[in-house]
């Protein structure tokens, strides 16, 4: 290989692989049933049976963490896909039409940006009730302006290229050009943003679940494990530390992976290494 991969990309890739691997594995196998309670074994220490011990209800911590990883990845994936598609489409539209439509879309995006994301999620939960679906919708919604901005800024650059002028000279309309030329050429920027937003979405899901607005029991979630462990901090601090570390690993992993991807796809933006 000609160039070395950036360090942040490598570290991010390893962390992401671990988290995704655990999530995927939980689909077919966990050491124990994550919801299986065993009161006699509560607050169990790490052992060959329970690798990271058990919680206040005697449930296996490793199995819960794995199932929670799956839950977290699903929410983040859905939210980034929904928010990313809508946001990118809006950004492309704004860029293709220009003029007052572009201004309007971007000013609305600015408002979306200025609105605190978690506050919006709490509002949504208050109106429609707390559920995982509403958490996904809330996180999707806060992703829309992010992607709209990135897509529109990148698209505006591509619109100035001569191959776009050539497509216009060929007599293609702006919708076709957006699809044929603009979208493929902003793909890298969108993927980088999606990776970074994946990290944000994981954190948002953890925060919402911590507040009781995300995954509802018995569905496992790092955020909810954290909030349940909070009252037991002096008794069993490890119960808060494990999900905390998982959140850190996942968020850091996707964040670094996104930064690394950006360094690879757009060397001009990368800092001196």
């Amino acid at each position: 290989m000609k160039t070395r991969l950036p360090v942040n990309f490598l570290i991010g890739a390893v962390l992401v692989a671990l988290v995704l691997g655990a999530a995927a594995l939980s689909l077919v196998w966990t050491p124990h049933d994550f919801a299986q309670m065993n009161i006699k074994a509560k607050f169990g220490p790490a052992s060959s049976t329970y690798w990271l011990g058990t919680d206040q209800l005697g449930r296996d911590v490793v199995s819960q963490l794995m199932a929670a990883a799956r839950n977290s990845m699903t929410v983040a994936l859905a939210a980034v896909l929904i928010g990313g598609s809508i946001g990118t489409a809006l950004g492309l539209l704004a860029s293709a039409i220009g003029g007052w439509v572009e201004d309007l879309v971007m000013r609305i995006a600015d408002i979306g940006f200025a609105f605190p994301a978690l506050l919006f999620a709490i509002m949504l939960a208050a109106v429609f009730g707390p559920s995982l679906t509403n958490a996904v919708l809330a996180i999707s919604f806060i992703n829309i302006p992010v992607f709209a901005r990135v897509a529109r800024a990148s698209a505006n650059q591509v619109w100035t290229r001569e191959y776009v002028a050539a497509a216009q000279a060929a007599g293609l309309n702006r919708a076709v050009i957006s699809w044929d030329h603009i979208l493929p050429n902003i793909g890298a920027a969108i993927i980088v943003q999606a990776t970074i937003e994946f990290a944000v979405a994981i954190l948002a899901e953890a925060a919402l679940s911590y507040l009781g607005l995300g995954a509802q029991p018995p569905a496992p979630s790092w955020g909810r494990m954290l909030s349940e462990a909070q009252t037991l901090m002096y008794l069993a601090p490890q119960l808060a530390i494990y999900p905390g570390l998982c959140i850190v690993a996942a968020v850091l992993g996707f964040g670094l992976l996104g930064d690394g991807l950006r360094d690879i796809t757009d060397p001009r933006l990368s800092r001196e290494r």
Partner: protein
Amino acid sequence: MSAPLLEARAVTRRYRMPRESLFRAPPVLTAVDSASFILERGETLGIVGESGSGKSTLARMVMAFETPDAGQILFDGQDLGQLSAGDLRRQRQRFQMVFQDPFGSLDPRRSVGWSIAEPLRAIGAENRAHRVAEALEQVNLHAADAEKYPHEFSGGQRQRIAIARAIVTRPELIVADEAVSALDVSVQAQILNLLMDLQDELGLAMLFISHDLAVVASICDQILVMQHGKSIEQGRATEVLNAPTQDYTKSLLIAAGA
């Protein structure tokens, strides 16, 4: 007598510059100032002038990327500014453009064949693969090159590809904006020869824009000299080059070492 293929009638294009003061109207730059010219079928009109003289803006208006603020561009007798968006799109196959930058005018993510076929797709033409192969051979490339991507070609080859895309709809007019300026001198000559051969073969008219008087002299029947957005002189190439009537044309010729 039928209308000339292309005619510019006192075309003016102004750009509004960024505001300098909140309380004064933004300054206006007149890029093209009532410029006029006539291009007959099958002929080549060279537009010369220093950078900033409005050559490229004029080309963009001929391509209907921009509309004149005043005056008209008439293609085959019809005012491009008066056509509906759909009619304009349908007319576009009749006038195509070759761009300056051979590295920027092809989408890096699309195969050469895909790019050349683009104007054909726009008009829903049949038999696209065959016509792409034909166009590639007309510019002395191979039909098999359609599978490749732009980065596999040199600057001169890419310019051939761009020309293939421009002629694939069998247009009547090609607008070449500094089409050889980015190329080496030896490659320039090849591309100029190719353009002249194609012109004979296909009966094309060409609007050839360049800052390089030597290049224009070698290829054009007619020359239009522009200065500060105005068309100051148009005539047969031999006349303009040998007996310029304007001082500015004389100074251009002296600068070119003619």
